[in-house]
């Protein structure tokens, strides 16, 4: 599973400036209420894409964690979700959480279960997202921002 600090191929600023029309859901996170909005919209998109109720819940929860991280640590950023179609393997939902916040100096530390710099927190947000989703990658640079790209494939049932 991808778990990199800085990837040469990924430009944090360019991801942040992605055009809204490239995505099915594009939400600016700037207020606390936006967390719930992002969660609801992710849930609706996953439902429309035919994900099982269990996976819809996991996706909505993951988006909730990512949106809250943006709001807490970067103050603002965006959640972008896109439905990718693959004839062989069925639809795939890709979620990008992007901000121009302070960045993360020690990614391994923030991916550790129970680690948090926020006092009212369980410290399981990012590690939880990784567990709930199929793919997970995080890119961060101090002073530039953070990008989390995570996805889930629709299971055949």
């Amino acid at each position, binding site marked *: 599973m991808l778990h990199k600090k800085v990837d040469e191929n990924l430009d944090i600023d360019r991801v942040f400036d992605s055009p809204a029309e490239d995505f099915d859901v594009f939400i600016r996170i700037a207020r*606390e*209420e936006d*967390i*719930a909005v992002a*969660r*609801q919209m992710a*849930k609706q998109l996953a439902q429309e894409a035919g994900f099982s*109720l*269990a996976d*819809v*819940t*996991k996706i*909505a*929860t993951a988006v*909730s*964690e990512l949106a*809250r991280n943006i709001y807490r640590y970067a103050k603002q950023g965006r959640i972008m979700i896109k439905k990718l179609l693959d004839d062989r393997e069925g639809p795939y939902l890709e979620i990008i959480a992007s901000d121009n916040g302070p960045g993360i100096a020690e990614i391994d530390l923030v991916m550790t*279960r129970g680690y948090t710099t926020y006092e*009212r*927190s*369980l410290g*399981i*947000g990012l*590690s*939880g997202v990784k*567990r*709930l989703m199929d793919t997970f990658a995080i890119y961060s640079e101090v002073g530039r921002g953070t990008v989390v790209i995570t996805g889930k494939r629709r299971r055949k049932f």
Partner: protein
Amino acid sequence: MKKLISKARVVPVICLGDFLLVPIQIDLDDRTVGLLQQQVLEEIESTRARAVILDVRMVDVIDSYISYTISETAAMARLMGCRTVLCGIQPPVALTLAQMGVMLQDIAVARDLEHALLIAGSQSGVG
């Protein structure tokens, strides 16, 4: 006697003998969860309830912050001599919480309302 009533009532609270029944039927954004905690604590104080039952049957997403606040509320209620019982967690929510590693260990959990009332009324048990 004047009682301190919370300005923001976000959930209905039903008095049931010594117990408070709190059905949560709204979307829990962060602000609402905070107000819910405040309201529940104020209701415990004013009613001197022995136990509070939080019914989350209608809640379809419980993330780490909501879990944290529920646990924290239970801890606060315990300090006020009141037991907290959580009931009605939906299967997909249980699956998600378990996969994330949220155990909600400090709070009593019940299968349904009937079970919750039984736990709330029992002398032993956690929460």
